[in-house]
């Protein structure tokens, strides 16, 4: 959305340049930081709507920046990483990041994630009872789920999973968080339950369960409800 301010933190000047031109072309105001300290200073002194944070920073690394930021702020943070290793991604997300992207990434994907995460940060639950994307519609006030106009009957947990993903549409949710939110803290490790239920959910709402359009697997990390724009 135009006018929103994004803080970009990366030690590589080419990346900063590319992001600044890419983001401002979409109407965002861009602040740049080359290391963690500069980033924390800027975030503390200026109002910022979202932070794009590279994990591989000199000095204090991206994880630490994220952790410190989270001590006093709930600004959405998208982390960038060269390594595709899921452990690193999960660690960042557990530290408080809201989403991640692996370099090299496409600008399109970054913009989509920025939109999704700013929207999430702004969302006020009661004001948006109906969520809709593509052919999927979820009326959260009436617990009604339809796909291409057809009502889908879901069991309670399947609905809760879908609801949580929809509230965070476009953002990745780690297994741990999803399990905690839907079943409770005691179930944080039970990724097996989650997979079984996601499988059942997909078979009910996906036109082609083997090629999901809505509930996307992020291998080794979690799930994301894709927003069709």
């Amino acid at each position, binding site marked *: 959305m135009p006018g929103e301010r994004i803080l970009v933190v990366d030690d590589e000047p080419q990346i900063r340049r590319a992001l600044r031109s890419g983001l401002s072309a979409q109407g965002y105001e861009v602040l740049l930081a080359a290391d963690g300290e500069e980033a924390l200073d800027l975030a503390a002194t200026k109002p910022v709507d979202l932070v794009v944070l590279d994990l591989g920073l000199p000095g204090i690394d991206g994880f630490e920046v994220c952790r410190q930021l989270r001590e006093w702020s709930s600004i959405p943070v998208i982390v960038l990483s060269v390594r*595709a290793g*899921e452990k690193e991604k999960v660690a960042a997300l557990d530290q408080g990041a809201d989403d991640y992207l692996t370099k*090299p990434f496409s600008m399109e994907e970054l913009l989509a994630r920025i939109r999704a995460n700013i929207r999430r940060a702004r969302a006020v639950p009661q004001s948006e009872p109906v969520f809709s994307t593509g052919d999927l519609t979820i009326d959260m006030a*009436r*617990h*009604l789920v339809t796909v291409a106009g057809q009502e889908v*009957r*879901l*069991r*309670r*947990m*399947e*609905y809760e999973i879908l609801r949580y993903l929809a509230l965070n549409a476009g953002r990745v949710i780690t297994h741990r968080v999803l399990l905690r939110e839907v*079943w409770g803290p005691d179930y944080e490790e*039970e*990724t*097996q*339950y989650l*997979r*079984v*239920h*996601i*499988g059942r959910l997909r078979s009910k709402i996906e036109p082609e*369960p*083997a*090629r*999901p359009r809505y509930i*996307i*697997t992020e*291998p*080794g990390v979690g799930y994301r409800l894709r927003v069709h724009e």
Partner: protein
Amino acid sequence: MPSPGALPAGKPQDAPRGTMAPALGYGLAVLGVALASIVFSMARHALHAAHASLLFLLVVAVVAYVAGSGPAAVSALLSFLSWNYFIIEPVHTFAVHEPRDLIALFVFLVVAVLIGELAARVREQAAGTRVREQAAAAHVRERATNMLYEISKLISADTDAIRVLPKVLDQLVRASHAGGGAVLLVGPRGDLQPAVTTRVDVLDAAGEDWRARAQQVSRTGQPIGLNPLLVRAPVYLPLSGAARVEGVLVIVPGMPRRGLPRQSRRVLLTAASHLGVALERQRLAAAAAQAEALRAAEQFRNTFLSSVSHDLRTPLASIKAAVTSLLHSEHSPEAQRELIQAINEESDRLNAFVGDLLDLSRLDAGAWRPERDWFDVTDLLGTVLGRLDDAAAARVRLHLAPGLPMVPVDCIQMGQALWNLIENALKYSPADSPVSVDVTAGGKAVLRISVSDWGPGIPPGEEERIFEKFYRATGDRRRKGVPGTGLGLAIVRGIIDAHGGRVRAYTRAEGGATFEILLPISPPDMPAPSALADEPAPDGEEYADAR
């Protein structure tokens, strides 16, 4: 002379020393008595009758010792007669006038016979002792040979001669009744180092610098201490191969006064020679293996470098060309878009290649180490297909059997393997042909995933070679134009192998290639998924809420 060791107990006549034909024995008896008689008669005036008896007794004793009791008895009798005839008065008759002479004669006869018997018996005993000694010696030799056989077996049984050294040394020390021993080996720099020792205290107490002496032996290649005169000193034996001294064996006798038994020396020498050859063989084999490893590494490095430089530079060249063209020339918007598309695609290819390189390092180390969890194959495939662009995704047909079990896999690695196979199938077949992915359960133990295309298939005979690193199919003109690192299939095989499965490729009768993965469903170290999924996972009833 007949072989002495063969008989456990022999007749006196066949005994080793003084073997004498019976005729010779009796002849000697007669001769001896005759000689004694002549001697006495010639010196009769100087000699007494008593001297004659002593002379004859001497003859009897000698004959008994040399020829046995038969000839001794004969000589006793003959002496008795001769003494009577030639010496006792009256001379030259067998009559005896003086009673005391008769008594003397009888006493003489008895004594003569007794002496004869005694001498013969002593001789037999000596012979018997000799026979027993020889038997014992033969027995010792046989034991030594057995020990040698055992030691040789020990050395031959293991190609790692160094590993068996402690046992071999132990056997050698015991076989030679030694007090202690050591084996020193020549190291790669030519220095001699103790490899294994037994009873170092005994070695050190031997009274000399055994390490320095061993050094000396390793240089000269000559043993020290085998000379039976120096019985107390340690024995140093070089362990020599055909080309050089590989080490030194040091043995300290356990009984300093007696030194090493002779048989032990034989065992030691033979064992030392065998050990030397075994050590040499091991050293040469290790050197050959190392040379081969170096050669293989060198070859790989060359292949790798040429592949990397080609695969990195090719997309970079395209990018550079497109970018510089955009910078320096005017293009229509469509042309610009095309060039920019090309840059985007080539960047993706570069990125894929970098990923391949990273996977390559894991390939080499065999370091996949899958972190397994139970996954739905459908989910894995869905993720892979999600990465394809719409046109490519549209070409893929999925055929999933109903009720497929979960598989215990590392989702990232298995995703990579499936991606490689599907991408390959899409790349190597015409752009309008379908790629089919079939998943079925093969009984309760195995999941079968196959990816089939309608391309040219696999060159006959290359069905295994295509899984080698850097392989690119030869012969097909169209295939040559297809870019790729040649690592994709090698990575697939590495991943599938690490999961305990198998992957193979074949050309179908109707044309096209099929790649088939077989994955085990139940590795022993994971709890079955049903145990978790069937637990009453709280999922509540259906939502029947107020509308």
